[in-house]
């Protein structure tokens, strides 16, 4: 009997081994080349991989994703997606599933992760303020209203960024203030207040965590706080950059983040002027103002800082321009698609992913040749976020 099994059924063991391999086992992999693309109209995100320039999976059930933004856990495994409807969804990039979700406000626009990675903080328009959550469980650990004045009003919060020491900095659109909240003991948040310019609409912290720069809608100029010398208070930089001229209409508010910093300078979108303003960090002298196609929205440095790529507000949102930071001149103007809403560079900047909302695609360009490398279909794509953000202060 046994010799018959050996003679005729020897193949059973290898086949069983093969079939064990064929059952879907999770492939071991890192997350450093992963990211998400927001498909804003359908409340979905795509999990993408930049090495293979491909979409790996789609995750749905994330609510209203107009103006969605994303931050990453410090292990690069989870994306925290902030929806306009106040939803905060934790997406597992490896399994492409929702690992947690809370609806934490009525109207939210973004968030940040603490230096130690334990807190994820949301910035909210309604009710105005910030809220901190346990990054593992999404349990609420601190609620800091952006109250101002004597009548119990709360301001919309913009420009939230993480700072060293588990502190968070943000601006109050309605109250003309910058605030720093220390959440090193979340049960006892401590907030410092700094009067700022009129109607801050967004802000950035430089990659070293030193300077916080808030863009202002309500006046010509920006507000800067030196976090190494906070007692000096907020200083106006580039005051009167509009030279008293009539401002042009702004059909979409620009966005600011640490990507504005390149070659020791900040490249900043003017408000109501079709210009990129260049200011030297530290001295705050105006270095240049570069005329561009329309109202700039994202003015984003390639990771090496040699180039800055710019997209524009409606109705000129089909255009993209590239500035050489060595000469501060435009070196390219092109149309990657209809309604370019966002762009994101790969971690070392050899490629850039560009979302074209009205063409329902993401276009991937080689940044050296500016030739298109690939296109991926996506439903009304907006924000594109790569996990390399997990390791950068202010992202």
């Amino acid at each position, binding site marked *: 009997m046994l010799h018959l099994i050996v003679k005729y059924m020897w193949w059973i063991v290898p086949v069983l081994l093969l079939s064990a391999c064929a059952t879907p086992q999770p492939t071991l992999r890192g997350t450093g080349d992963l990211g998400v693309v927001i498909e804003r109209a359908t409340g979905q995100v795509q999990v993408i991989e930049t090495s293979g320039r491909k979409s790996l999976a789609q995750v749905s059930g994330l609510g209203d994703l107009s103006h969605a933004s994303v931050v990453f856990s410090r292990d690069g495994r989870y994306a925290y997606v902030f929806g*306009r409807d106040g939803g905060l969804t934790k997406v597992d990039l490896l399994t492409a599933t929702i690992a947690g979700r809370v609806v934490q406000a009525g109207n939210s626009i973004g968030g940040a992760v603490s230096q130690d990675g334990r807190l994820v903080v949301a910035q909210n328009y309604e009710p105005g303020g910030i809220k901190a959550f346990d990054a593992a469980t999404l349990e609420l650990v601190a609620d800091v209203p952006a109250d101002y004045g004597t009548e119990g009003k709360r301001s919309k919060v913009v420009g939230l960024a993480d700072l060293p020491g588990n502190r968070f900095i943000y601006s109050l659109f309605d109250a003309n203030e910058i605030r720093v909240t220390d959440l090193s003991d979340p049960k006892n948040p401590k907030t410092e207040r700094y009067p700022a310019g009129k109607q801050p609409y967004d802000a950035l912290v430089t990659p070293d965590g030193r300077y916080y720069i808030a863009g202002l809608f309500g006046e010509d100029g920006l507000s800067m706080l030196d976090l190494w010398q906070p007692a000096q208070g907020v200083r106006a930089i580039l005051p009167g950059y509009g030279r008293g001229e009539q401002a042009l209409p*702004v059909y979409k508010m620009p966005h600011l983040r640490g990507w504005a910093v390149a070659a020791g300078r900040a490249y900043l979108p003017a408000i109501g002027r079709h210009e990129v303003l260049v200011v030297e960090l530290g001295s705050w002298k105006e270095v240049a103002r570069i005329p561009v196609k329309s109202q700039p929205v994202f003015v984003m440095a390639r990771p090496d800082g040699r180039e800055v790529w710019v997209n524009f507000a*409606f109705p000129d949102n089909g255009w993209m321009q590239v500035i050489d930071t060595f000469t501060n001149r435009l070196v390219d103007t092109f149309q990657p698609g209809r309604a370019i809403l966002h762009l994101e560079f790969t971690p070392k900047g050899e490629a850039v992913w560009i979302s074209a909302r009205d063409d329902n695609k993401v276009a991937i360009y080689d940044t050296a040749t500016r030739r298109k490398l690939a296109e991926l279909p996506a439903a009304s794509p907006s924000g594109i976020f790569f996990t390399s953000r997990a390791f950068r202060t202010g992202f």
Partner: protein
Amino acid sequence: MAAGLPAAAQEASPQLQPQRIRELVHLVRQDCGSCHGLTLQGGLGPALTAPALRDKPRESLVATILGGRPGTPMPPFRGIVAEDEAAWIVDRLAEGFPPDPGASR
């Protein structure tokens, strides 16, 4: 064509072509939506839902679209939408704005 739009949205303004109606709905949902939200529940700008606009006079809403609101981020859309188109948008907002059928081809 405006196949994705409810019949009421197409019939309400015989002088606007279906193609233009589609563009206007896309404009309001997507580009006005960048401040007012895709669902028009509000953002940096106020909510534009039917209940939120109930007590606002029609003429002042039309004027706001065309001329903007100085001192706020609301820009003028004169030159982008015509007066009858602004009025059409206000009337649709008042009854609950139609969903976006997507960008025109």
